[in-house]
């Protein structure tokens, strides 16, 4: 048990270290334009990580994770405009979003809504946000000093130093912040899934009734992981509106909701690094496709999703792990040890 925790965390630390190296190396070799673009991809990776946690580990089929992401971005932007500084705004974004998720989750989990309905309800919430905020273009739709701006959205004040609301961060600094947030969230989630809480959540994913019969209040655990996931998604939203410079209702679109699901499906449920990697890969794929008009983004993503559901349902990361394990099995002396290690590593 203990060795499995270390092993699991060891790979987490390995990837975190890679991230740190990338964080300091990238601005040295890449152009500023690429760095700004990367910031957006990192923000999306935080979103992917949050869904990897609640779907991949918690088994909660949330089709509307992007709602928390967008809500976080809007709350940050509106608060930052009103407060005249970003520090409290970031905190507000996480708290308000988590509170919203907790309220929604209360209705869902304590109503014992099943997973398929849960997906549809969360998706519906997202789409309602989409259509609601699109209508707020008039001058009467304002919160404090912040005009909501309808489908044009609001421009987001950049993050400033916590002790000086006058000194805004430059884009390359925002990149550092984003990368640091991603790495910290990744290590945090990697740790969380190995705590008692995380393990019970995995157990609930595997068999909710059995977890109940062992005396665990599964509703509470699901609500907990759902709320934490929403908070992380909100952080991603804060980074996103900083990277892009504004936030529009398009963040709540069906396309973005689908994209989040696709990252996790492609990367693999039950891993953390898989969905993060898939986010970067698909971000660059869609950027590359955006440059031409022959193949539409929707079309390509639709095909990817269908192919993965039908042919690679486990996703890339677990499939690769299985493949490596099956190859190593061929070396008889090491086979036993590997098999043991693999069973431990399975989470």
């Amino acid at each position, binding site marked *: *048990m*203990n060795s499995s925790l270390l092993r699991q965390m060891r790979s987490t630390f390995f990837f975190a270290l890679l991230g740190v190296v990338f964080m300091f190396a990238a601005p040295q070799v890449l152009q500023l334009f690429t760095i700004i673009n990367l910031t957006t991809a990192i923000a999306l990776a935080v979103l992917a990580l949050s869904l990897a946690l609640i779907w991949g580990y918690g088994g909660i089929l949330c089709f509307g994770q992007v709602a928390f992401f967008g809500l976080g971005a809007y709350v940050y932007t509106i608060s930052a405009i009103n407060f005249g500084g970003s520090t409290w705004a970031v905190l507000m974004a996480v708290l308000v979003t988590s509170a919203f998720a907790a309220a929604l989750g209360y209705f869902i989990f304590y109503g014992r809504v099943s997973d398929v309905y849960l997906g549809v309800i969360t998706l519906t919430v997202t789409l309602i946000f989409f259509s609601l905020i699109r209508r707020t273009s008039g001058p009467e739709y304002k919160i404090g000093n912040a005009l909501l701006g309808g489908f044009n959205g609001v421009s987001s004040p950049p993050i400033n130093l916590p002790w000086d609301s006058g000194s805004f961060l430059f884009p390359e600094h925002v990149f550092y912040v984003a990368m640091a947030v991603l790495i910290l969230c990744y290590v945090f989630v990697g740790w969380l899934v190995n705590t*008692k809480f995380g*393990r*019970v959540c*995995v*157990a609930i*994913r*595997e*068999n909710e*009734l*059995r*977890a*109940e*019969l*062992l*005396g*665990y*209040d*599964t509703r509470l655990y699901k609500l907990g992981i759902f709320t934490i996931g929403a908070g992380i998604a909100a952080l991603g939203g804060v980074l996103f509106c900083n990277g892009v410079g504004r936030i529009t209702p398009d963040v709540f679109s069906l396309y973005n909701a689908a994209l989040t699901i696709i990252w996790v499906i492609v990367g693999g449920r*039950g891993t953390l690094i898989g969905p993060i990697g898939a986010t970067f890969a698909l971000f660059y794929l869609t950027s590359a496709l955006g440059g031409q008009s022959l193949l539409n983004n929707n079309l390509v993503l639709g095909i990817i999703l269908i192919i993965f559901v039908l042919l690679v349902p486990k996703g890339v990361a677990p499939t690769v792990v299985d493949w490596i394990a099956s190859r190593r099995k061929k070396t008889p002396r090491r086979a036993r040890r590997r*098999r*043991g290690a693999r*069973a*431990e590593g*399975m989470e």
Partner: protein
Amino acid sequence: MTRQRGDVVVETRGLCMHFGGVRAVDEVDFTLFDRELRCLIGPNGAGKSTFFKCLTGQLTPTAGDVMIRGQAMTGAEPFEIASLGVGIKTQVPNVFDGLSAEENIWISARRWHDDRRARTLTAETIERLRLGDIRRTQLGRLAHGQRQWVELGMVVAAEPWLVLLDEPAAGMTHEETYRTAELIEEINKTAALIVVEHDMQFIRMISRQVTLFHEGGILMEDTMDAISADKRAREVYLGHRA
């Protein structure tokens, strides 16, 4: 009549579970004493499994009361009942298929203890149930009987004072059944048990007191020998099987 008279640990009064017009459990008064080992038997549809589900919180009774150690638990959620220190095994194996045998049992032990104690308990349970060979194997890859055993391990690891088992020997080999009977005897040293069973041979191995269900109610409560000798009982149950 009962060999171990102690405190009442489970009591139902006028317990009813109706599905539409079907009275699956009808006005059942039932009492279990501490350290007692009680088997519930009866033909298919007699209501014993439904009764079991009312006890474990999987079903909310239509009427009547369930008391566990004097606490009213009618309509409680399964986790609330389990949280009293009740170990439950359902009819269909309910295990965590994606986790290893060791992790399954750890999850159970961890509910009550800190990590170190939970790990010790897990190791002990694995030893006790002779699960060493499969401790690292994902449960989804194990045979039916082995998964049943892991589930029993989860029940044992929680150190319950009351154990409710629904058909623990179903689908097991002869050898496994024998070992299950042994395990139940052992659990009974520290806990009261209710065992729902079909397998008559198995019941003979473990039984002291037996409750015979028929058409949603209790037909009689006695030793297995007395029930086998009883004419009514043979008609409703044993006769059906012959």
